[in-house]
C-alpha cells in the first residue's frame, strides 16, 4: 500500500561556517535472493565503512553545538512517535535501532512503552541521550548484529539509520527475529530522491571540471525494493509511505556543513578522498543557478520512507479463501440496497 504524501517544510538557517564534502551517489538495486539469515555469504554487499561511520557519529555527537543539527532527526522522530500512538496498543518492551540521541523516546510516554532499549554504534551519542520519562537502557551495538534473543520485543522502531547498513535484508531479518509474534516494526529511512539537488550539482560540476565524476551521495533503496525486503524478512501487513521534507539553506557549503554535523558524511568505500576547491566552487554555482528558490535560498530535498510491518500471529486478519465470496463486484452499484436488505432480514 503506497500513500505518497508531499510535505514541504521550509527553514531558513543562519549563515554558518562551511565544511568539507558530504555524501552523494546513485540508487542501489538490492539483489533478490540474498544470503540466508544468520550467515554472511561472500555475496553480501559491503558498501559502507562502518568503522568510519562510528567515528563520524562520535565526532558529530562530541561537537559543542551538536543540537543545532538535530532538526531533521527530531522531526522524523516525532512522526514515528505519532505512528506508534496510532497503534492502539501498549508495548511493555521496545527497541530503538540506531537511536542517535534518542529522538523517538522523548515523544513517547510511560503508558505506551514500558521499557525502552536504545541501540547505536556511537557511544558519544548514547552518552548525550535526550530526556525522557520512560526507563531506558542504552546498548552499544551494530544494527546488523542485534544482541537479543528471539521473540523479545513488542515494538521495534528505527529512525534514519538503516540507510548506512551494509546488509539491509539481514538487518530487517534480525529485527523480525527479535520481535514477538504480533509485534510491530515502525521504521523510517531516507529514500531515493534524497539530496538529488546536491548529487546532480556535484556530478555536473565534476564532469565539467574534471572530466568524470565519482559518487558523493550514498545509494538509497528504491521504494519497490523496500516492500520486497520487508516481505522477504517475514513481515506481514506492510505499509510503506513516502514523505518529502524540503529544507532551505543559504548555500551549498552550509548544507554540506549541516550534513557533516548530523553525522551523515559519506563513508562508502568507493568515495573519493578529495574534493577539489574548484569543483566545490563550480558545484555551488551550478546548484544556485539550477535549483534556487525565489528568495535566493537553496532547497535540499529529504525523501523519507516510512514503513510498518507486523510479525505474524494467528490473531491477525488474513486474506479470505479463494471462492468464499458471497457477492460479486458487479453488484457494487447496488451495495446500499444489498446492505439494507441484509439489515431487514436480520
Amino acid at each position, binding site marked *: 500500500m503506497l500513500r505518497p504524501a508531499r510535505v514541504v517544510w521550509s527553514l531558513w538557517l543562519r549563515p554558518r*561556517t562551511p565544511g*568539507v564534502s558530504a555524501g552523494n551517489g546513485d540508487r542501489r538495486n538490492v539483489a533478490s535472493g540474498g544470503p540466508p539469515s544468520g550467515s554472511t555469504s561472500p555475496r553480501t554487499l559491503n558498501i559502507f565503512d562502518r568503522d568510519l561511520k562510528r567515528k563520524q557519529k562520535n565526532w558529530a555527537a562530541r561537537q559543542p553545538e551538536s543540537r543545532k543539527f538535530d532538526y531533521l532527526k527530531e522531526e522524523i522522530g516525532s512522526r514515528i512517535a505519532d505512528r506508534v500512538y496510532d497503534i492502539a496498543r501498549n508495548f511493555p518492551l521496545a527497541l530503538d535501532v540506531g537511536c542517535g540521541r534518542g529522538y523517538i523516546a522523548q515523544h513517547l510516554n510511560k503508558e505506551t512503552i514500558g521499557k525502552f532499549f536504545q541501540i547505536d554504534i556511537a557511544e558519544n551519542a548514547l552518552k548525550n541521550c535526550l530526556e525522557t520519562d520512560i526507563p531506558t537502557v542504552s546498548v552499544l551495538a551494530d544494527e546488523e548484529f542485534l544482541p537479543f534473543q528471539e521473540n523479545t520485543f513488542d515494538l521495534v522502531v528505527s529512525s534514519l539509520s538503516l540507510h548506512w547498513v551494509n546488509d539491509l535484508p539481514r538487518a530487517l531479518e534480525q529485527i523480525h527475529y527479535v520481535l514477538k509474534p504480533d509485534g510491530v516494526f515502525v521504521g523510517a529511512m531516507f529514500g531515493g530522491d534524497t539530496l538529488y539537488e546536491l548529487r546532480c550539482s556535484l556530478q555536473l*560540476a565534476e564532469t*565539467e571540471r574534471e572530466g568524470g565524476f565519482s559518487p558523493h551521495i550514498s545509494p538509497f533503496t528504491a521504494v519497490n525494493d523496500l516492500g520486497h525486503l520487508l516481505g522477504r524478512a517475514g513481515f506481514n501487513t506492510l505499509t510503506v509511505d513516502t514523505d518529502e521534507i524540503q529544507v532551505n539553506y543559504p548555500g551549498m557549503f552550509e548544507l554540506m556543513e549541516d550534513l557533516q554535523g548530523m553525522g551523515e558524511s559519506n563513508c562508502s568505500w568507493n568515495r573519493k578522498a578529495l574534493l577539489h576547491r574548484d569543483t566545490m*566552487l563550480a558545484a555551488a*554555482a*551550478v546548484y544556485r*543557478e539550477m535549483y534556487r528558490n525565489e528568495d535566493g535560498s537553496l532547497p535540499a530535498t529529504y525523501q523519507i520512507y516510512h514503513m510498518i510491518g507486523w510479525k505474524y500471529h494467528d490473531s491477525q486478519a488474513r486474506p479470505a479463501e479463494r471462492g468464499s465470496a458471497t457477492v460479486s463486484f458487479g453488484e457494487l452499484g447496488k451495495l446500499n440496497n444489498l446492505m439494507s436488505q441484509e439489515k431487514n432480514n436480520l
Partner: protein
Amino acid sequence: MSAHGAVWGRVRSRLRAFPERLAACGAEAAAYGRCVQASTAPGGHLRKDLCAPEFEALRSCFAAAVSGKGGCVMVLEVQESP
C-alpha cells in the same frame, strides 16, 4: 583528526570564508551555472572544460574577493522613553 589539528584548522578557516566570497561573485557564478545548465538540455553534451571561460572568470573573481569586506556594522536600536 586530532593528530592533524593545525592542517585541519587552516583548511576549515579557508572554507569558512567561501560563502561570503561566492556571494560577492553572483554574476559570474550565474553565468557559469547557466552554461552548465544549458549543456543538460536535450542535444547538449557536457564534457571537460566546456564552460572553461566562465569558470576562469568566476575563479578570478573569487580569488579577488576579500572576505570581511566592509567590516562589521552594529545597529543599535535606541528607544525613546516616553
